[in-house]
C-alpha cells in the first residue's frame, strides 16, 4: 500500500506546499522555499564532488558565482546585452565547468586537506576579482537583471491560472522543484553508473582504484567539472530569481554552509543531502520568532536576535554532529560500515583488563601481551 500511494502523495504534497505555506506562515516563507530549493541544487552538486568522489571542496560557491555573474552580465542593462535563457543556461553551466576543470587540473593531485585549502583560496580569489573588476561593477554588483523567461512566459510576473493569480515566487517554486528533481534523477543515475562506481572506488581507496586501472586523475576532474556545472546552473537561476547579484552573496561562509548541508544530511545519500539542504536553509529563519519571544517575556530585547538565532544554529550543528556523526539520513551502506568499524575496534578483552583511555584510536584493539613484548 505504501509503495502505491506514496509517490502520488508526494507529488500532491509538493504541489500544495507553497499554498499551504503562504496561508499558514506568510508569503516571505514561500520565497524562503525558493531559496531552499536553490540551496538543494547546490548541495546536490557539491555532493557529487564531496559525497561521491570524496574530494573536499571549500570553494564551491565560486562556481555558483560564475554562473550567476555570467547570467547577470549577459542579461541586464549593465553591458546592454539581453540574451535568452536557452543560451544563458548552457553558457553558465559550461563556463562553470570550465572553471572547475581549470581549478582541478593543477590541484587534484593534492591530498585531502591541501585540496580543501586550495579550493578555499580559489573561492576567495574569484570573489576578490568580482569585487574589484569594473566589468562586474565592483562591490556594488549588478542589478536590474532580466527575470528568467521561457518564450514569452516571464517567471517573475504574476500569471492567472484557472482564476487564481500566482505571483512570481510560485512560478519559481515550480521551476525549481522541476530542476531539483531533474538534478536528483541525474545524480541517482550517475551514482549507479560506471563513472559513479569508479568515484566510489576512488573515495574509498585511491591507490586500490588506481591499481584496478582507473584513470583517477580524469575521473576526479570529471567529478569537479560535473559538480561545478550544477553550481553554475544554480547560479544562473539565482541571478534571474533575485534580479541582483553582488560579491557579498558569494563569501566563503556560503561554501561552508553548502558543505554543512551535504555532511549534515549524510553525504553521498541523495535523500539525506536534500534533507540537509532544506533543513539548514530554513533553520535560521525558523529561529526568528525567538526574538519576539524574548520581547514578550522580558519586555525588552536583551540579546540581538540575529546573533542569537545564528548561535542556536551553530549549537544545533555541533549537536547533530556529535549525536549522529554519519549525518541525519545516511545511506544504509554507509551506516552499516560505520557501525561495523566500531565493532572492529572493540573486541575488548572479557575481564580483568585495564584498558586505559578508551578514546585513543586503535589503542583498545591491542592486547596487553603485545605491549608487554615491546616494553
Amino acid at each position, binding site marked *: 500500500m505504501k509503495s502505491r500511494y506514496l509517490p502520488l502523495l508526494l507529488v500532491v504534497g509538493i504541489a500544495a506546499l507553497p499554498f499551504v505555506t503562504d496561508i499558514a506562515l506568510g508569503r516571505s516563507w514561500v520565497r524562503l522555499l525558493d531559496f531552499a530549493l536553490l540551496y538543494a541544487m547546490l548541495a546536490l552538486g557539491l555532493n557529487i564532488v564531496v559525497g561521491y568522489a570524496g574530494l573536499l571542496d571549500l570553494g564551491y560557491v565560486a562556481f555558483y558565482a560564475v554562473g550567476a555573474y555570467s547570467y547577470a552580465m549577459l542579461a541586464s542593462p549593465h553591458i546592454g546585452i539581453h540574451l535568452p535563457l536557452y543560451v544563458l543556461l548552457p553558457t553558465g553551466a559550461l563556463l562553470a565547468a570550465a572553471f572547475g576543470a581549470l581549478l582541478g587540473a593543477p*590541484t587534484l593531485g593534492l591530498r585531502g*586537506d591541501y585540496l580543501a585549502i586550495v579550493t578555499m583560496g580559489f573561492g576567495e580569489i574569484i570573489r576578490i576579482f568580482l569585487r574589484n573588476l569594473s566589468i562586474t561593477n565592483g562591490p556594488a554588483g549588478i542589478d536590474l537583471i532580466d527575470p528568467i523567461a521561457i518564450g514569452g512566459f516571464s517567471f517573475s510576473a504574476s500569471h492567472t491560472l484557472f482564476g487564481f493569480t500566482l505571483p512570481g515566487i510560485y512560478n519559481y517554486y515550480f521551476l525549481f522543484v522541476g530542476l531539483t528533481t531533474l538534478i536528483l534523477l541525474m545524480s541517482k543515475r550517475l551514482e549507479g553508473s560506471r563513472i559513479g562506481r569508479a568515484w566510489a572506488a576512488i573515495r574509498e581507496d585511491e591507490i586500490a582504484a588506481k591499481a584496478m586501472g582507473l584513470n583517477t586523475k580524469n575521473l576526479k576532474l570529471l567529478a569537479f567539472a560535473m559538480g561545478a556545472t550544477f553550481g553554475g546552473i544554480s547560479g544562473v537561476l539565482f541571478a534571474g530569481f533575485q534580479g541582483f547579484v553582488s560579491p557579498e552573496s558569494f563569501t566563503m561562509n556560503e561554501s561552508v554552509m553548502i558543505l554543512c548541508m551535504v555532511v549534515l544530511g549524510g553525504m553521498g545519500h541523495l535523500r539525506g543531502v536534500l534533507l540537509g539542504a532544506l533543513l539548514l536553509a530554513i533553520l535560521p529563519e525558523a529561529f526568528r520568532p525567538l526574538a519576539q519571544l524574548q520581547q514578550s517575556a522580558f519586555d525588552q530585547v536583551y540579546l*540581538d536576535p540575529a546573533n542569537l538565532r545564528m548561535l542556536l544554529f551553530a549549537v544545533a550543528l555541533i549537536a547533530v554532529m556529535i549525536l549522529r556523526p554519519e549525518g541525519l539520513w545516511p545511506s544504509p551502506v554507509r551506516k552499516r560500515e560505520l557501525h561495523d568499524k566500531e565493532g572492529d575496534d572493540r573486541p575488548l578483552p572479557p575481564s580483568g583488563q585495564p584498558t586505559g583511555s578508551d578514546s585513543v584510536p586503535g589503542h583498545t584493539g591491542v592486547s596487553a601481551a603485545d605491549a608487554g613484548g615491546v*616494553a
Partner: protein
Amino acid sequence: MDIFLQQVINGLVQGSIYALVALGYTMVYGIIELVNFAHGEVVMVGALVSLSVIERLAARGYSGWTVIVIGLLLAVPACIALGLGIERVAYRPLRKAPRLAPLISAIGVSIALQQLAALIWGRNYLHYPDILPKTQYAIGGAVISEVQVVILIAAAVLMAGLWILVQRTRLGRAMRASAQNPAVAGLMGVDVNRIIATTFAVGSGLAAVAGALVGAYYNVGNHTMGFLLGLKAFTAAVLGGIGSLGGAMLGGLLLGVIENLGAGYMGKLTDGAVGSNYSDVFAFLMLVLVLVLRPSGLLGERGIEKV
C-alpha cells in the same frame, strides 16, 4: 623612503602574527589531523578580552606596555580555557567519527563563538585606546615603530620557547610521540588525551597573544576579525607544510612578506590596473603555486602513503 625595505619590515611584523596563529593550526593538525576551524575565533576572543581589560585600565589613566601585559594576563588564561573547552565538547567525542564530522563541528564552534562575541561585545568595530608610545626608529631609509619592534620580539621569544618546549622537554617528547603514532605513544605510557588537550591549550595561549598583538597593531577589533586572520594563518601553515613547527613559522613570515610586497608593488608593476586590493589574491596564488610544485609544503615531510 625605501619602499622595498619598508614593505619587508611590515611584512615580517604581519607575518610573525600569522606565524603565531599558524602554530596553533599546525600543532593540532600534527596530532589529530583536524583543521581546527575555530582557531581564528580563539584569536578574536583573545583580542577582545584584552581590549576590554585595556579599555578599563586606560579609562583610569594607565598607559604604556604594562597595560597590554595585564590584558594578556587575562586573555591568555581565558583563551586556554576556551581551547580546552572546545576540544572537550566538540572534538573529543568525534575522534573516531568519519573525517568530515569534526570539521563540521569545528565550523559550528566557529560560528557559535562569532555570534557569542557579537552578543557580548556588540557588532560594531571597537577601537583600542591610545596608550602605546608612538616612537619610530629609522633604519636604512625605512621606519619601524615601537609597536612593530615589540611584536617582532614577542613573537620571536614565544616561538623560541615553543621550540624548546617541543624539542627539549618531556612533555614535548610526548607530543611528538603522539603525533607520530598515538596508539604506540599510548602503549608507552603517554596519556594521549592529556597531550591533545595540552596541545590545544598551548595553541590557544599563542592565539591569545597573537590576538592582543594584532589588536594593538591595527587598533581595532571586531567579532569577525578572526575569520580572515585564521584563513591566512592556515594558509601559512599549509605553505610551510602542515604539521611542521618550523614550517608554520617560515610560512607565516613568508606569507606576510609576500602579501606586503605584493600590495606595495602590484600597482606599479601593472600600471595601476591591479592595485593593492588584490594582495589577498597574490597570497592565495602563491599558495596554489607552492602546493602544485611542492605538494607537502615547503618544510613538510614527504608523506609516504600507507596502503
